[in-house]
Structures are given as C-alpha cells and as structure tokens.
C-alpha cells in the first residue's frame, strides 16, 4: 500500500503503470467490500437459499425424525390443502390493506407536500412535526391508536358522539366491518407525513420559472398543476409508490398489535410467522415465504414495466 507514495514515474511508462495501479485499486476495493459482503451473504443470501431449499422439505421443529425432501407437496398444500383458504384470505387482506393505505397516503401526502412547499409562517416547524410520526416505533403508534379507538373510553368515540358524527360508540377494532379501516387509519397517520416529505423533495427541484412562464401565458392554477407539477413530479411519485407498496405488502406490526394472530385478520406476514414460530412447521412456512416473495416480486415487475411505459412516452 505504501507503493503509492513512490514518486510518479516518467510519462513513458504511464500505460503500464495505470494498469498496474488499476489492478491494485481493484484488489483494495474488494478488500474494503469484504466485511459487508460477508455479512450480506450470511444474513440474507444464505438464508434465502436455505428458505428455498426448506420449502421442498418437511422440516418441523417439533418433529423427532430428521427432515426429508418432499418435492412440491408444500406448494400443493398451499394452493389446495386444508390451510389454503386461510392463506388466500391473508393474501387478500394484505392486498386490500396495501391498496387502501397507499392510495390514501399518496393523495393526502401530495396535498400536504403542496401546502408545505408554499411559503408561510411556521413552515419549518411543520416539516419537523411531520417527521415525528415517522420516527416513532409502529408498535407504539399502534398502541396509541388502539387506546384512542377503545370502545368505552376511547377519545374517537367520545368526540364522535359529542359532535353527533356517531350515533353510538363503535367497537372499531373488534367488529369486522371497521377492523380493516382501523388498522389502515394507523398506517395512514404514521406514513402520510413520510410520503409527503418524499414528494416535497421532488417538488423542490421543479424550476420556479416554469410557473412564472405559465402565469404570463395565463394558465390557471389547476392547469399549472396538471401540466407542470404532476408530469415533473412523476419520477418521485413512482419511486415513493414503489417503496410504500413494498412496505405495505410486508405489514406485520399494526395488525399483530391490534388482532394478534386471529385467523380472519391475518396478513401474509402474520400467517407466515405463526406457521414458522408458533407451529414450528419450517418446511411449509418456507413455501409460504417463497410465495410471499413471488407476490412482492410481481408488484415490482408491474411497477417497473409501468415505469418503462411512461418513460417511453
């Protein structure tokens, strides 16, 4: 390594020197990367490979005999077995949750971003305030809302009945008709500010003179929004939507705090966790993991191809 400190040789040997230097640089770069790559290999890539392997076995924590290869049986069980209805309802529950929360978070987040992007007193405070729900643990947010949504002593029923919005107190969390809405409310509250901040970052790189020119040409505020803001914000919107969708599809914390692992309100992640940790069925659980992985990958593919289409336009 100390060789770098030798004086620079005359230009005639420049070519040879640069390839040698190049090689030395490459070796050093891989050396610097080694610890991180080893960790990624051990905590992510190896377990992923192992999961795929386990999904073809009947590995079980509680079983006494060693596990053996059973081919596609776990996958067959997943699609047609007695448990398949539970899995399907978990997938459906997760997708409903994803569509509702990502939709609301995008619309509300965009409105908030537009408000914060204009200059007014207290703008700095507002930006700081927006970071707070994002920073606290999801479990803590879920507990705060669970208490606010309490049937007898919750503030939402109290305020709702006082303002005559509600005719009588609701059991928001335990009654099936409002359970999903209640979980979504927590996630929307916690994540909308974060979405707004990402969109705000996108808004701030739109050059201001575009609006001035549009103003001179007599474009209305609404026209400016549709013709300038939205098209130029599209890349930021897509990236935000991808991140939010992937996050929402693996939702675990809010549902678990609200409902535990009750069968009718499971998400994919809760179903998978209860199979593996609760029942110890590692082999079948691995097949569920692979299925979840594929479902999430499907969403990524949809988004990426959508991005290509819009990029071609």
């Amino acid at each position, binding site marked *: *390594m*100390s060789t*770098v400190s030798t004086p620079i040789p005359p230009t005639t040997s420049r070519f040879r020197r640069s390839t040698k230097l190049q090689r030395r640089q*490459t070796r*050093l*770069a891989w050396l*610097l*990367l080694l*610890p991180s790559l080893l*960790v*990624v290999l051990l*905590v*992510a890539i*190896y*377990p*992923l490979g*192992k*999961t795929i392997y*386990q999904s073809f076995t009947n*590995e079980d924590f509680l079983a006494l005999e060693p596990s053996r290869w059973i081919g596609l049986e776990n996958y067959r069980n997943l699609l047609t077995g007695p448990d398949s209805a539970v899995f399907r309802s978990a997938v459906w529950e997760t997708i409903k949750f994803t569509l509702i929360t990502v939709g609301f978070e995008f619309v509300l987040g965009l409105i908030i971003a537009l*408000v914060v*992007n204009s200059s007014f007193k*207290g703008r700095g405070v*507002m930006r700081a*305030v927006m*970071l*707070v729900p994002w*920073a*606290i*643990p*999801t*479990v*803590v*947010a879920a*507990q*705060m809302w669970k*208490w606010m949504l309490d049937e007898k*002593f919750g503030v939402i029923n*109290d305020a709702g009945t006082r303002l005559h919005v509600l005719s009588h107190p609701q059991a928001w969390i335990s009654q099936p008709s409002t359970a999903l809405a209640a979980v979504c409310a927590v996630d929307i*509250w916690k994540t909308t*500010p*974060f979405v707004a*901040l*990402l969109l705000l*970052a996108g*808004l701030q790189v739109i050059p201001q003179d575009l609006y001035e020119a549009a103003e001179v040409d007599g474009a209305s*505020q609404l026209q400016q929004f549709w013709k300038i*803001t939205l098209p130029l914000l599209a890349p930021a919107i897509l990236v*935000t939507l991808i991140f939010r969708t*992937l996050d929402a*599809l*693996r939702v675990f*914390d809010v549902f*678990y*705090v609200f409902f535990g692992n009750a069968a009718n309100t499971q998400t994919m*992640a809760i179903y*998978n966790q209860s199979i*593996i*940790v609760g029942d110890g069925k590692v082999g079948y659980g691995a097949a569920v*993991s692979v299925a979840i992985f594929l479902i999430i990958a499907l969403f990524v593919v949809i988004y990426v191809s959508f991005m290509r289409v819009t990029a071609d336009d």
Partner: protein
Amino acid sequence: MSTATETAQPVARPATGSRAFRKSRLGRILLRSPFYFLVILIFVYALFPFFWAIRSSFTPEGDLFTTPLQWIPSHPTFDNYRTALNASFFRDALINSTIVAGTVTLVSLSIGSLAAYALGRFKFRGRGFVMYLMLSMTIFPQIAILGALFTIISGQNIIWFIHLPNIYNTRWALIFSYLIFTLPFTVWVLTSFMRALPRDLEEAAYVDGATPIQVFYKVLLPLIAPGLVTTGLLAFIAAWNEYLFALSFIQDPSKYTVPLAITNFVSPTGSSFAVPWGAIMAATVIVTLPLIFAVLVLQKRILAGLTAGAVKG
C-alpha cells in the same frame, strides 16, 4: 403553492375589482384563511395522538376509565410513570434496545463506510453488481427468510464444517438479524455521500504521499461525518423500532426490546380485559421523547439522508 405564486409575484393581468380586493389587507387574509385552516388541520392530525398519549399518561388510572372523558386531567399525576418504570421488564427493555440498536448501528457504520469508500471512490469491475445487490437488499422482505434465520439462530445449522452457536433468546440474535436491513441501507446512503465529495481533495493527499487507507480516515471520513450522523440515526431508529424478529427470537421478558415491552404490559390483577392504559401511555411517552428530540435536532440532516436513500435511488 398556489397561494404563494398568487401573492408573491405581480401578475400581468387586467386590473379588476377582484384584483383590488386581493391586494387589500382584509382580502389577503380572507383569501389565505382556507389555506391556514388546512395548515392547522394538518398540525392537529399529526399531533393529536401525541397529545392524547400525554394526557392519558398524566391521568390517574381511576379517571381514565370513567365517562364522560376528561380531556384535560383534573388531578394530574406521575403514578403511571412510576408504574411503568417500576416494571423491571420495561427498564430492561430500555437497556436492551439501546445495546442492540447501538451495536447494530456501530457495526453497520464501521464496515458500511469501508464498503461505501470502495463503491464511491474506486472504479472496478463488479462495482455495478455490488450496488445493485445492496439496493435489492434494502427492499428485501424480511419475512421471507424468517424460517431460515430461525434455524440458523437456534444453532441447528451447520455450514460446511462450522457449527453456528445457539443464540436464540439472546441480544446477539437481534444484532445479527438486524444487520440485514441496517447494513445495505448504510452502504447505499454513505456511497451517495462519498460520491458527492470533490476529487481534488484526495489527489492532493496522494501527492503528499498518503496511502488509500490514510486518505479514507484522515480526509474522507471527517468530510462525510454529517452523513455518518444521519445514516447512523436512521439505522438506530430502524433497529429500535423493529418488532417481527424481536417477537420471533426473544422469549424471556428480561431480554425484551422496547416494542415487545410496550405490548406486554398487563394489569396488576393479571386480567386481560383490564389493560393498564395509563402505564402503557406513560411508557409510550418515555420511549418517544428521545426520538422526537433527536429528530427535531437533526431534522435537516434526516431529510437529506432519506431523500438520498429513497428518491435518488
């Protein structure tokens, strides 16, 4: 935004009565009042759950469970805080979470910054592949490897000839598994900070006879110190908030992390129907305050780090 362009720039439009109204003081206030109403609404929406948590934490247990609700406690008390802090598993959880999140952050920063140095300042074959690998790791669904991690952590796994130790139900299990989401993120964000530094600083150091390693910790590391603080805080928050792995790998109440402890408060009578919401809200306030403080102090940095990690990615 709309209102900002309206009031800030003189607009070339024919003068009408409405324009005179707009320019008058009263007119301006009236026109902006819906906007400020929206601002206040956003503030209330973001902060009300915190107000309610604080209110409940200072309300005596007896008053919490009587209707009509007192929005401001008439007999404020510290009893709930005493109850929360007297629970030994909650005190342990504060220590455990600090140790786990702190260790994960330090490990991620120290090996992640080396990797970021290689990825940000060197040109070599395979660089693009490693960047791609790290990015795909940041959106990796952790649930997908839960089963494999579970077998690895409980010491039932032999890689080649290395028998991994059983670390189930220890802090090591969490430190190990949390690296999967903190390390790739750290590498990704720090790389963007590294790449933003000007080339000539390094070259000057090389001319003075510094080795690449000296350049790293004497020149580059001090320059990206703000980036290290931001990334470290984000990694710390992510580890502090994690729930799925903690729930799956920890059993012993003395090993609980904060999210586990927050969901495990039971009433002194042991009844699952009488949830001690006062103590839970006190615990919520206790774990939230340091996060809010850190976020408010470092808000500009956090915004920069988040956008580097998400929008530019």
